[in-house]
C-alpha cells in the first residue's frame, strides 16, 4: 500500500504569467512525482499540489527562489488518510 508520510499539499496562487510558468515548468519534472489536485489555470487561480516528502525541500526552494508564495493546505497527507481509515473501521464495527 502506498503511504503518504510527510507528503504535503501546497496551495500556490500564481499572481502573474511568469509565476504561472514557474509552476507549469515544475509540472513537467516527472522525477518530483508531483500530484496536481488542482491544475494550473491562470494567474489568480489556486494550484493545489501534493508533494512527496523527498521532493518537498527542493520544490519549496524552487518556489522561494522564484518569489512564488505558497501556503500549506495539508501538513501531512498520511495523517488525514489514517483518520479516514479509522473512521471507516469504526463505522464498520458499528
Amino acid at each position, binding site marked *: 500500500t502506498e503511504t503518504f508520510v510527510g507528503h504535503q499539499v501546497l496551495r500556490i496562487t500564481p499572481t502573474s504569467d511568469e509565476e504561472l510558468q514557474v509552476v507549469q515548468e515544475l509540472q513537467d519534472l516527472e522525477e518530483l512525482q508531483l500530484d496536481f489536485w488542482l*491544475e494550473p489555470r491562470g494567474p489568480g487561480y489556486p494550484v493545489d499540489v501534493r508533494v512527496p516528502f523527498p521532493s518537498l525541500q527542493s520544490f519549496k526552494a524552487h518556489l522561494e527562489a522564484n518569489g512564488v508564495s505558497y501556503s500549506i493546505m495539508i501538513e501531512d497527507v498520511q495523517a488525514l488518510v489514517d483518520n*479516514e481509515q479509522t473512521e*471507516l473501521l469504526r463505522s464498520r464495527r458499528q
Partner: protein
Amino acid sequence: PLSTNTFDYATYHTLDEIYSFMDLLVAENPNLVSKVEIGRSTENRPLYVLKFSKGGTNRPAVWIDTGIHSREWVTQASGVWFAKKIVVDHENDEGLASILDQMDIFLEIVTNPDGFAFTQTQNRMWRKTRSKQSGSVCIGVDPNRNWDAGFGGPGASRNPCSETYHGPYANSEPEVKAIVDFVKSHGNIKAFISIHSYSQLLLYPYGYTRTPVPDQKELHQISEKAVTALSSLYGTNYKYGSIFTTIYQASGSTVDWTYNQGIKYSFTFELRDTGRYGFLLPAKQIVPTAQETWLALKTIMLYTRDHLY
C-alpha cells in the same frame, strides 16, 4: 445492515458495501428500482447502473454518474445518498414525483470500480482506470479525457504516466465504452450529469475549445438556477461556466461528448470543498454535500422535464 434504512450514509464505504447497498435498494423497491449491468471494467468488475422508473418503455431520461475519478470519494458517497433520496421522496416530493411521472433516472454510483477498489487497498490517491499500457510501466487512463470529443487535443496528456493521460484511442477504457454504448442504445437521454470533486464548480461544455456551445446562454441560466438552489441550504459557494473558461482546456471529456451526441443538458459538478481537505473530505461532510447537491440536481431535472426536446 438488514435494510437501507440502517445503512450509514455519513461514512465512506467499500466497493462491496456499495454493491450490497444497491441490491438491498432494488430488493426493497422492486416497482421503482432495478439494476442494469452495462459492461465490465478492465479488471472484470461489473459496471452497475441503477434505473429509477415508474414504467413505460424508453422514456426520456436523466443520467447521473459519480466516481469516474476514483479518489473523489465524496462523489460515490453522494451517489449512494441520491439513490436512497429518490426512493424516499419519489411519492411525497411533488417535484421529484412529477419528474418520475415523465422521465426515468439512471444513476451509476461507481463508474470506475477498479480505481475505487485500488484507492481502498493500495493507493488512496489513485484517480485513473487500471488498464495496462503497452510500452509503458505506467498504469491507467484518465477516464475524463478518453471520450471522443476533441480526443487527444490540448488539455490532455499523451504520456501514460500522467494523471491526465488520454489513453491510446477514444473509448479505449471499457468503463467509458460501456456508457457510450448505453447512451447510444438508449437514444432518449435528455440530461447528462457527471459528478466530480473538488473545487465547487458547476460546469457545462465545451472543454476542448473556447468556442461557446450553441446553447451556452440556456446552459448558463440553468447553472445559475441550480447553483442558487444549492447555495440556499448551507451557503456553499459555487462558481459556474463552461469548462474551458472556468477552469482550463480539457479535451476528451465526458460532457463534451454527451453534448455532441445531442444531449443538450450536459453538466459536470465539482463538489466540496474549495481547498482545505481536497479529496480527503471528512465523512461528516458527506450528507450535507449530498443534500445541497441534490437541490441543484433537482433544479436541472425539473428544467429538463419542462423543456423536453
